[in-house]
């Protein structure tokens, strides 16, 4: 495969595509998105640094220790970043950025790369002036400071977060031809915080309190109703992310975490919890984040035009992160396919791989930790000698649920449902090793 041309400003093609979308026609965007590939390294390596020569960096003294008091990635990794799809949202404030899944090296998304969905922009919150109010159907309404919250017993747990709009652009057909954009509305971090049940104990929930309205301190006052059952189960009030304070994009200084559920229920910048008897029917659980369905299934025609509400659980999903459009195959020979799988119902039990568009399947290996409601790595070794392949991955949860095909989802919900598209995804590997997002 020929090396990718480096574009004029030295930026990668994907940057050009996203940043310059406005100068690019839709057709051109789709063409480039599906056809271009990025080769981050190997472009202009000075041969004087290769054997038998001693590299220049070995012959000069390095920078002082602590040159970057808050460490930064190598400058050669500058292409690894969250990106937006500029035309996806009406503005850049109530918008979303995507995790570069092709560049994730393990089961954790680094804090600077963890996708971000803001409904009213990114607030700048002084933790000294941040408060969590808990009131409603309680014996004793209270206000907690950040110091108070960190005096409760705390736990660290690794969980994924996924926006229910992940893969939403693909209901009618493949549209955004890069892994970052087809599946990047997810992250997985180690979250440190207090189990909500401990905090609820402080206020004394009255018997009629069955729901909790969680509300953020952003300009959207982003809000969702959470059933008490979930609150008392595994919901956390989180202040730590991958060993440091939450990043602003992920809710600094305090957020809710409802493991395995729609990402937007893990309210960021958490300021208020109100115990209620009924759901509060917020905009984000009536107008948005509901699933309008039009099943093709003949036995479900009475459901056409109805909408699922409170469809909280993010169901099982697996995606191959190498090869992918951003990471094509370069030479013939042996490869290890890598990917990530997760389910909001528990642990991943199996991931299966098909190379022929879903006719035959073989079980992949699960690598490393297999945790509850957490990204799980999988791998599959194969040899490629230039044949066209249609590669797919299919997750099965410990509950027995098997990730559906896009056709099965369309049978159940039609094509205009927006959220909760967890279909088996297909990458087509062409003879020259390029990878394209397709549907079969």
């Amino acid at each position, binding site marked *: 495969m020929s090396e990718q041309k480096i574009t004029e400003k030295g930026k990668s093609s994907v940057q050009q595509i996203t940043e310059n979308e406005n100068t690019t026609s839709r057709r051109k965007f789709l063409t480039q998105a599906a056809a271009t590939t990025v080769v981050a390294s190997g472009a202009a390596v000075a041969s004087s640094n290769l054997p038998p020569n001693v590299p220049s960096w070995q012959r000069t003294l390095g920078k002082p220790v602590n040159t970057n008091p808050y460490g930064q990635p190598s400058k050669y990794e500058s292409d690894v970043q969250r990106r937006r799809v500029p035309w996806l949202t009406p503005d850049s404030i109530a918008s979303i950025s995507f995790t570069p899944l092709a560049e994730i090296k393990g089961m954790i998304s680094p804090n600077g790369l963890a996708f971000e969905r803001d409904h009213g922009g990114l607030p700048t919150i002084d933790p000294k002036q941040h408060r969590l109010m808990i009131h409603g159907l309680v014996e004793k309404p209270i206000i907690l400071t950040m110091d108070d919250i960190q005096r*409760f017993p705390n736990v660290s747990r690794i969980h994924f977060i996924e926006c229910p709009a992940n893969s939403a652009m693909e209901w009618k057909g493949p549209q955004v031809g890069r892994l970052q954009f087809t599946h990047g509305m997810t992250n997985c971090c180690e979250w440190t915080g207090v189990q909500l049940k401990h905090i609820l104990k402080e206020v004394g929930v009255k018997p009629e309190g069955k729901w909790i309205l969680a509300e953020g301190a952003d300009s959207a006052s982003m809000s969702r109703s959470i059933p008490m059952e979930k609150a008392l189960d595994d919901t956390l009030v989180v202040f730590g992310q991958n060993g440091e304070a939450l990043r602003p994009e992920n809710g600094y200084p305090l957020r809710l975490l409802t493991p395995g559920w729609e990402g937007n229920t893990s309210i960021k910048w958490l300021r208020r919890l109100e115990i209620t008897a009924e759901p509060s029917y917020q905009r984000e659980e009536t107008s948005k984040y509901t699933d309008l369905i039009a099943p093709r299934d003949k036995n479900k025609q009475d459901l056409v035009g109805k909408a699922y509400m409170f469809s909280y659980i993010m169901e099982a999903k697996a995606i191959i992160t190498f090869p992918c459009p951003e990471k094509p195959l370069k030479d013939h020979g042996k490869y290890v396919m890598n990917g990530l799988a997760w389910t909001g119902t528990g642990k991943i039990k199996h991931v299966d791989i098909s190379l022929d568009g879903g006719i035959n399947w073989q079980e992949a290996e699960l690598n490393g930790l297999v945790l509850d409601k957490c990204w799980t790595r999988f791998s599959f070794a194969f040899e490629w000698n230039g044949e066209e392949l249609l590669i797919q991955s299919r997750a099965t949860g410990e509950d027995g649920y098997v990730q559906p095909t896009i056709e099965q989802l369309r049978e159940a919900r039609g094509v205009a449902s927006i959220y909760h598209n967890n279909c088996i995804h297909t990458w087509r590997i062409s003879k020259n090793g390029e990878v394209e997002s397709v549907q079969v």
Partner: protein
Amino acid sequence: MVRWKVYKFKLLVASVTTLLISACSSNNEATAVKVDKSTTKTIVNSILPSAHAATYEQISITAEGFKLGKPASNEEIAGWHIEVGHGHNLPPGEGTAADGEEMFETLCASCHGSFGEGVGRNPVLAGGEDTLTDRQKPERTVGSYWPYASTLLDYTHRAMPFNSAQSLSWDDTWSISAYVLYLNDIIEDEDFVFNAESYHDITMPNENGFIIKDKEADTSNTRCMKDCKDPKSITIKTALLGYGSGAEDVVEETAVVEGHELGQKIYDATCRLCHGTGLAGAPKVEDRVTWEHRLQEGINKVYKHAIDGYSGQYGVMPPKGGNLELTDEEVKAAVDFMIKDVK
């Protein structure tokens, strides 16, 4: 319930030296830490007099609660307790669609359109009736989709206008909400007084359109491993080769409007928030007089202020409208779009 291990350990002054050392080392015996005994003794004496060599015990923290935080007063709760529930927690005040019309035009129409039709990709608020069964392009508007009017009151007050959340009084909220319902023919009389009492006279057309999704999945794939489908049944759909009309619809729904100039797209996405409304002293697009005045100092100065930002007697312009992802050329294109009728 978390079970907390209970540790008891007695601290005797004589053993504190050992404890201090072992705290610094994982292996007490192999420690390389050298301790000056006389110094250690002095420190120990000063921080832990023998009279306080008491028994410490890790407490059970789940039994009684932590008693952290301070009680929330009614006044504090009232300031933050903003949500409006369906039929309860309804706010005070009232308004009519007639009252709301002018406010809507001033505060809302730049994004949502004068008739709630939506500008650019901003939410459409009105219309779409009987489209929910459309398999390709259902229109989810306040009138066609939202189950409860309380959500409209709640969200309007909570998060709108987009650039100044929680700035509307409850009277304004009732008025604007009444006007949005009026645009949807749900309130038919523009003088209908919308308030906590008359709220119950309103029925949203799609109130019964929602189903609580049970925990059972609505698909049931099987873990087939061999010969799972007929190879001849496989057709490959790509964005490039086309997916019939479907792919076109997706694009139309989620995105780019063909034929838009670059400048207008940038304007819609970044500039309109202020230049559509006059926020922060921003000249509105149609305000030719102000633009002509600004242009007296030359177009390059206008470009410069747009790119680098401006703060002064006329107001505040954040660099690149706050969207630093834009290139200078894109900002200039947006400026050109805004002044196209002036030049």
